[in-house]
């Protein structure tokens, strides 16, 4: 979980919750969330809230021995930005066991005009989105104050690992 701790530490002090036996049990899909499933409050104006949920599996690194015998492989994700009142702004989803199998984004209805063609229920296709890229966007595009002065280096390093070791894109 060290990579995830590093990534989250760029914008928040937080607690990562793992589902039961989520540190070690192999052959099972685990979940994680942050702060007991309460959104992180990002330091910016206007205030943004940030929810993080992921499914992951602990798998053998048979083809990458330099990484040690085990690694965490993402099985689904939800990275969601909300207004200070909890209304959806933007949410990146990938949950391949459901009807919409490919990564996509939902736009929050608070960001849409009353008669907009776009709908918050519509699935707008994306590539695979890294948590690092979402956090970087929060800092560079929405003025979130970084909580770690080394955020640029941390996100670049962790995203480099993500791009090197991910099993699909």
């Amino acid at each position, binding site marked *: 979980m060290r990579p995830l701790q590093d990534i989250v530490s760029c914008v928040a*002090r937080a*607690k990562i919750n*793992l*589902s039961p036996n989520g540190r070690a049990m192999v052959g099972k899909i*685990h*979940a994680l969330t942050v702060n007991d499933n309460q959104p992180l409050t990002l330091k910016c104006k206007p205030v943004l809230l940030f929810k993080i*949920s992921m499914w992951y599996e602990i798998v053998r690194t048979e083809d990458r021995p330099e990484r040690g015998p085990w690694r965490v492989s993402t099985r*689904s994700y939800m990275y969601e930005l909300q207004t200070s009142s909890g209304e959806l702004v933007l949410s990146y989803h990938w949950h391949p066991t*459901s009807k919409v199998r490919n990564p996509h984004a939902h736009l929050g209805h608070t960001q849409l005009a009353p008669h907009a063609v776009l709908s918050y229920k519509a699935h707008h296709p994306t590539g695979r989105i890294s948590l690092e890229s979402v956090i970087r966007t929060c800092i560079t595009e929405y003025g979130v104050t970084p909580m*770690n002065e080394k955020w640029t280096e941390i996100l670049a390093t962790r995203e480099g690992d993500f791009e090197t070791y991910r099993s699909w894109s």
Partner: protein
Amino acid sequence: MPDTKSDHEVEVVEVSREEGRSLLDRAARDELGMSGDRFLAKWDAGEYEDADDPAVTRVAMLIPFAR
């Protein structure tokens, strides 16, 4: 990797099964107005297979906490 001190600032906690079920139950009540058990029953019955509401996803992402 640089010393980020993240181990001190972002802790990792593994919840118990009871705590996990409580987490799911709260989310199901907040997002969908039903208990966690009711949500799981509907999920297992396939009632959300065509769901396109992000609120369903918010709850579904917590299913492994309860199982």
